[in-house]
């Protein structure tokens, strides 16, 4: 039993740096995907959907990857504090921005992307 535990510990020590690096890279790719969505989506509300990818999956995956690479437990606790802060503040900030935009009278784009030009042609 103790032998098995020692083997598991040795395997974990061997595998944690490559696994942590791969998780960090995967989370960074998720962040880039969310940013490309923020750049290319046509509307504020759809851009908010793309930005939430960065806040939720990208951040969580990168933090888990960094926790796998952590040298001691204090670093893991700090990463947990960062995760807790992001877990609480990111949905609140998103709700505040969306509520402010809705209250300020920003209308979402409804229909297909190029349907606005059709409407203008119909009106003209």
């Amino acid at each position, binding site marked *: 039993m103790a032998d098995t535990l020692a083997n598991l510990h040795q395997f974990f020590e061997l595998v944690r740096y*490559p696994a*942590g*690096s*791969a998780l*960090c*890279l995967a*989370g*960074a*790719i998720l*962040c*880039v995907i*969310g*940013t*490309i969505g*923020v*750049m290319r989506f046509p509307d*504020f509300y759809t*851009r*908010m959907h793309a*930005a939430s990818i*960065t*806040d939720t999956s*990208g*951040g969580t995956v*990168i*933090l888990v*990857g*960094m926790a796998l*690479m*952590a*040298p001691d437990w204090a*670093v893991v606790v*700090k*990463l947990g*504090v*960062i995760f807790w*802060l*992001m877990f609480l*503040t*990111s949905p*609140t*900030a*998103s709700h*505040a*921005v969306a509520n*402010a*935009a809705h*209250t*300020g009278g*920003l209308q979402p784009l409804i229909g297909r992307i190029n349907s606005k030009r059709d409407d203008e042609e119909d009106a003209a």
Partner: protein
Amino acid sequence: MTAAALIAILLGMILLLIRTLLGPTLYDRVLAVNSFGTKTVLALGLLGFVMRRPEFLDIAILYAMINFVSTIAILKFFRYRSFQVPLVRRGGQGGKRNG
């Protein structure tokens, strides 16, 4: 691979700066700045792990707190044009309205 992740996040931060400068409305800019702050937290953590100094996470915690406060402060300022307005209704209790 951690350095590659850091470079990818820096690329995303540059794209978000472009959205901040281009953004057609105020809310696009606020959203881009908020996302930029989240990416700053992640980039600081990754920078600490690339340089083998995880003490950078303390600065990342600080940025995670400042980011939320700055977003709410910007939104409040552009709603009321002042920082002096209280956001909580005085004497209010939960969802109950006291006139």
